[in-house]
């Protein structure tokens, strides 16, 4: 058994879900090789070499791996796929984009977004917005799997760093061209890596009012998230969205403010350790998953919460 994990990174550092993905690969059992492909990403490769469970790192650098275009990353993975029994990547925007391409070209049915590993060929994955958990078995020769980071505790540091080898790039497919990215800038922790998240919904009323949540988040060292309604209303950028079709998070503390608790939102946060909800509606469905809930107007409760933490 030999497992290839494709690492997500920003050339310097690995993205938060990579260590969890490696932890999932460890559970599948077998030698783990990590592929780090990018423009100038040797630092990220060195970081991957220091994660427990990693036997080898493949570093592949070329200008056309900037932006991780699905066509190019998939072609690179395919160039070495035959040596592996499992090909694994995080079920993030990165993994979701290119992994199905790899699977289709290998004539394999991908197993998306696994939250547990039962054995080398059997996995658990949420379906219907997490309303059900399916245990599925793959008959394919190579298992192509994307991993839900919140299902696995991060792998630790290795005692000895694994060797880093160079891998030859595959020619640019020329099918698509990366033009650029507009990344939301923030000094706060990233949603998928934060220990505490403060999320706002339609109840916030405006983007301006999110400042109330930011003040609270700053006191807690928290990230800021949102419901789809808050994103669709233009209060905050799209990458704040938590839920079935946004980000899946499971922080130690999730604070839902002015969020009703639709199933699609719960799908993205109900595995958080502690959930608190602030909502003026005593019947809000979010209370069903909350450890503590407060029925109050958020415009009164949130500033008071921030003040109370300063006291």
């Amino acid at each position, binding site marked *: 058994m030999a497992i290839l994990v494709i690492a997500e990174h920003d050339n310097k550092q690995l993205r938060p879900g990579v260590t969890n993905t490696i932890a999932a690969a460890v559970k599948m059992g077998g030698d783990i090789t990590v592929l780090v492909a990018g423009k100038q990403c040797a630092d990220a490769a060195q970081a991957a070499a220091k994660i427990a469970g990693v036997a080898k790192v493949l570093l592949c650098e070329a200008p056309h791996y900037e932006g991780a275009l699905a066509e190019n990353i998939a072609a690179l993975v395919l160039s070495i796929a035959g040596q592996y029994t499992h090909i694994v990547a995080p079920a993030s925007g990165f993994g979701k984009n290119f992994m199905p391409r790899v699977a289709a070209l290998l004539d394999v*049915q991908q197993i998306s977004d696994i939250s547990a590993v039962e054995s080398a060929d059997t996995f658990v994955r949420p379906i219907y917005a997490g309303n059900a958990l399916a245990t599925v078995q793959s008959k394919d020769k190579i298992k192509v799997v994307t991993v839900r980071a919140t299902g696995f505790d991060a792998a630790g540091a290795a005692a000895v760093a694994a060797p880093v080898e160079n891998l030859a790039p595959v020619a640019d497919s020329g099918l698509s061209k990366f033009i650029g990215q507009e990344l939301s800038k923030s000094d706060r922790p990233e949603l998928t890596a934060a220990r505490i998240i403060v999320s706002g919904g339609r109840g916030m009323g405006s983007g301006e009012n999110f400042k109330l949540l930011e003040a609270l988040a700053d006191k807690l060292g928290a990230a800021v998230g949102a419901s789809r309604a808050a994103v*669709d209303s233009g209060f905050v950028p799209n990458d704040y969205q938590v839920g079935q079709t946004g980000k899946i998070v499971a922080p130690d503390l999730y604070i839902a403010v002015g969020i009703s608790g639709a199933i699609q939102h719960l799908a993205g946060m109900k595995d958080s350790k502690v959930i608190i909800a602030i909502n003026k509606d005593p019947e809000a469905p979010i209370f069903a998953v909350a450890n503590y809930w407060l029925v109050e107007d958020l415009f009164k409760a949130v500033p008071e919460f921030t003040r109370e933490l300063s006291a």
Partner: protein
Amino acid sequence: MKVLVTAKRVIDPYVKVRVKSDGSGVETANIKMTMNPFCEIAVEQAVRMKEAGVVSEIVVVSIGAQQCQETLRTAMAMGADRGILVETADEVQPLAVAKALKAIVDKEQPKLVIMGKQAIDDDCNQSGQMLAALLGWPQAAFISNIAVNGDGAEVTREIDGGLEKLSIRLPAVVTTDLRLNEPRYVTLPNIMKAKKKPLEIIKPDALGVDMSPRLTTLKVQEPAKRGAGVKVADVKELVSKLKNEARVI
């Protein structure tokens, strides 16, 4: 140019899904079904492009049971010109969806395929990327904008850190994210008109592709329930609970 869109029939997103007691799946009998929301966005996009004069014909495809005809009629009431149903009562997994669609694309030769990013029942998020791969076409997944210019298109994708812009060659496959558009409601006159639009039914055998499932579902369970929480009287009590009971701050 000709556009192909896909429309999957799924359980309505606002229905509470229940796991069957024998663990074989979820209850589907007598449950409200609808077009997958991301497919509605795909159909809407195609219709807007036709209204803008960029698209000349919209073909909508659904794969599944006979009742998918209703889903196709809805898409045609929104503005699609004709429908194709690949009729099968069997389970169809994304690789099989992509293979069936490839066979149809080979015949129809559209310049653009617009699909949903994800079916809200299986939550797989695979079929569009797989189809692009099988065709050897470029892909743009999770788009929130598309502008076609001649033989290419410029697209904006929703990515984890914000937005990304790509230019892709056509023909291509794109998949829709939530912010691409807001689908229109179908009107009664358009529902009537849609009844007269052509709807072709094809059996999987006729496509010459193997659509058998590769994954076996061993069981389907309900997720663990969270323990009952407590209501707090005010912010002071909330903070005290967080500090002294939950110990998370």
